[in-house]
């Protein structure tokens, strides 16, 4: 084996273009781009689902969609946006940025990284394949028992959901182990924990949340799967089970999950604000510890999703208090962001627009969130559009605004050309206005009693014009993202005229010290870090902008070999799980066989 490994290492470098190179890539930057492209497509699909929902609700008693189609659309909209859009958009940034920011050549386990991506995309495709059978999941993204039981959901819809989420969970867990170890162990010399860029810190905390939250939903889904496939009664009262168990398990996962969605955007904004304020992040340590505190408390607030189940005064009080408490570290972050801007020399570039939009909108969403901490208020708001307004302010106004800002910020690094500033700012204003038009009236609709997840409403309840405004707003959001795609297209066409330098924004972190886009090995020499904001220190010492880094010949730099075994293993894993739904035991066993074959070949493959 040792001989073959040596031979392999000296074999001519395999071709770096074409489909095969993408199927076998283990380069964290390429995997990041794969994640980003896939997630953006899923985001557009989820957005289309939202537009159909809004079109149905634009007038009362509309029959544009049937109740069944509406159920499928809102379930798939939620599931897609959470698991197939926002999480993988974060995964794109984890992949692309973490090794660059900590000064590493790749992640700790490059093939495991490829495996995560392949499992994710197979899970996403499987979940969406349900549309082909006209059996898309239709029990809500939270899949409450006993709506999901065989008795009330006899079709394949919920099976697609359970198995799809189970597959996606494997991808998240594998990636979380990988990134956690990468951040702990692959930091460049001098990159102490308290010198890491805030995005890396928030990413690390997110990995901890993933590691501890996903096993819980895995178990919850296993119970649901056995209830549906084999007839156990975990969630079925007639057999002694308790549907509330699902809610507990789901929300023990589900509330940390919302921090999994929002902590990476916190990190993005914490990178953008200092660079465009020309001063270091205010309260670095407070930012780190408030992030960690949010994650810790995030495991102790789940029952605020369940006040209406009647948990009793003690549980209600405890979860009400922890929920109010979690507003404190979040508030610390917001004050620190404002403190970063305060007295800064603000460079009004596109990424800063989105970061500012993020702060404004996230504060609104945060405030309506604290309102849910009060059980009596929450009982009025539960299952109304007020809740829909709240989480769209934090997830669209928060996460998506930060993601778009991050896209404008890191695009030049990833692709080597700048996106158009003017178009970006126009997009910002359309997005900002349309976002508020879409989601602000939902507060009123909710407090007027408009229920969520209901495909229509009757006229004359004071909801008509609110819903019409919301639908007009949602069309504005469609325009904003069309403009984003136009921007990408136009900028790509003009990329020769507008190449990105290594450091277009006067950045502070290591990714800006290398050419755009980076070479495969990232750093010709592993950098040594002497403080926070290493690039600003370097520029200060140099007395001005650094010379443009040259592309160098890296043929002597040892990189992991490409491999297709992660893909094979991912296919085996997916087939194994899909067997529960189609084909039964033989399909399970075929999946297990492919999984073991792939895993063994992977384990004994020379890594170079």
């Amino acid at each position: 084996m040792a001989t073959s490994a040596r031979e392999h290492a000296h074999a001519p470098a395999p071709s770096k273009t074409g489909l095969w190179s993408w199927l076998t890539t283990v380069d964290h930057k390429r995997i990041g781009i794969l994640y980003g492209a896939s997630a953006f497509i899923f985001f557009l699909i989820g957005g289309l689902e939202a537009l159909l929902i809004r079109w149905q609700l634009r007038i009362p008693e509309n029959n544009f969609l049937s109740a069944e189609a509406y159920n499928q659309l809102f379930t798939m909209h939620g599931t897609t946006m959470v698991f197939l859009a926002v999480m993988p958009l974060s995964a794109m940034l984890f992949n692309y940025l973490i090794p660059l920011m900590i000064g590493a050549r790749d992640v700790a386990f490059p093939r495991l990284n490829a495996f995560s991506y392949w499992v994710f995309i197979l899970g996403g495709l499987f979940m969406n394949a349900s549309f082909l059978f006209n059996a898309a999941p239709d029990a809500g993204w939270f899949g409450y028992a006993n709506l999901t039981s065989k008795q009330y959901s006899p079709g394949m819809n919920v099976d697609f959901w359970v198995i799809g989420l189970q597959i996606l969970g494997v991808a998240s867990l594998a990636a979380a182990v990988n990134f956690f170890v990468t951040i702990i162990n692959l930091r460049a010399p001098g990159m102490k924990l308290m010198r890491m860029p805030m995005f890396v810190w928030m990413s690390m905390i997110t990995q901890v949340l993933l590691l501890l939250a996903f096993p819980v939903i895995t178990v919850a889904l296993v119970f649901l799967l056995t209830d549906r496939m084999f007839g156990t009664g975990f969630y079925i009262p007639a057999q002694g089970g308790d549907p509330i168990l699902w809610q507990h398990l789901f929300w023990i996962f589900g509330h940390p999950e919302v921090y999994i969605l929002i902590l990476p955007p916190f990190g993005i904004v914490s990178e953008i604000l200092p660079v465009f304020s020309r001063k270091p992040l205010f309260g670095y340590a407070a930012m780190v510890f408030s992030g960690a505190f949010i994650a810790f408390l995030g495991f102790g607030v789940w029952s605020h999703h369940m006040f209406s189940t009647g948990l009793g005064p003690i549980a209600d009080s405890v979860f009400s208090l922890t929920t109010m408490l979690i507003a404190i570290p979040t508030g610390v972050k917001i004050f620190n962001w404002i403190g970063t801007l305060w007295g800064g020399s603000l460079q009004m570039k596109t990424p800063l627009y989105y970061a500012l939009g993020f702060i404004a909108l996230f504060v609104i969403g945060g405030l309506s969130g604290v309102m849910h901490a009060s059980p009596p208020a929450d009982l009025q708001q539960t299952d109304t559009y007020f809740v829909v307004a709240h989480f769209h302010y934090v997830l669209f106004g928060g996460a998506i605004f930060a993601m778009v800002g991050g896209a404008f910020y890191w695009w030049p690094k990833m692709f080597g050309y700048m996106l158009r500033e003017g178009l970006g700012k126009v997009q910002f204003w359309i997005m900002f206005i349309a976002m508020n038009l879409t989601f602000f009236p939902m507060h009123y609709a909710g407090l007027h009693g408009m229920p969520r997840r209901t495909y229509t409403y009757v006229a004359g309840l004071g909801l008509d014009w609110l819903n019409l405004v919301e639908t007009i707003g949602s069309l504005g959001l469609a325009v904003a993202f069309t403009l984003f795609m136009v921007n990408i297209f136009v900028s790509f066409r003009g990329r020769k005229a507008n190449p990105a330098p290594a450091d277009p924004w006067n950045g502070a972190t290591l990714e800006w010290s290398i050419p755009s886009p980076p070479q495969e090995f990232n750093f010709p020499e592993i950098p040594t870090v002497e403080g926070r904001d290493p690039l600003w220190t370097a520029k200060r010492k140099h007395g001005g902008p650094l010379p443009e880094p040259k592309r160098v010949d890296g043929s002597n730099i040892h990189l992991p070999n490409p491999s297709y075994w992660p893909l094979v293993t991912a296919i085996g894993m997916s087939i194994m799980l899909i067997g529960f739904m189609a084909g039964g035991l033989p399909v399970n066993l075929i999946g297990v066989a492919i999984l073991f074959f792939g895993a063994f070949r992977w384990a004994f493959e020379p890594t170079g």
Partner: protein
Amino acid sequence: MSHADAHAMHPPTATGLDTRKLAIWTFIGSECLFFASLISTYLVYKGKSLVGPLPHDASQCMLDGRMQQCEGVFEIPLVTFGTAVLLFSSYFVVKALSGAQRGNRKQLIGWLSATVVGGLFFVGMQVYEFYHFFHKGLGYTTNVFSASFYTLTGFHGTHVTLGVIWLSTVLVLAIRGKLPPEKALNLELAALYWHFVDVVWIVIFPVVYLMK
């Protein structure tokens, strides 16, 4: 420098910990929540079964097509013996690892084989136990006790089985002479996982079998 040579791909790590070892520990941390959820569910459903058989007490249950009085299903002596074997296998793998690290091939192969045999015995014990329970009228879907019990111990058994496969693979490497002292980590990783699987059972055994 030998460490750096062994892992030419990565320079020495930021913490000095081996990257693969850290990954196994991270994975184990995650697995704790997996088993915690399963064990919690078992406890939540304790005493909630609508029909028998029950773990300890006699109850009315459906057997041979009619409702009748059934004994509690657990047989503590058998599972105690299986538990002891599993715990001893954790000791065996420590001895095997010490053999691997000191280049004592005989010690390595002997103790590692004993570990694998111990693991296989435990799995065999569990298969026998499940078979036996089934014939006492405890099917997978009989009641919430059976569903949560079989799911919990079944997943643990699956973990033991995967551990046996992993350790056997390392054993084959050892027999072929491909586990020199500088590669003892390949065994240590499997051993860490094996200890974890044992520790989970140390929780399951009293909580599920002994607690009435």
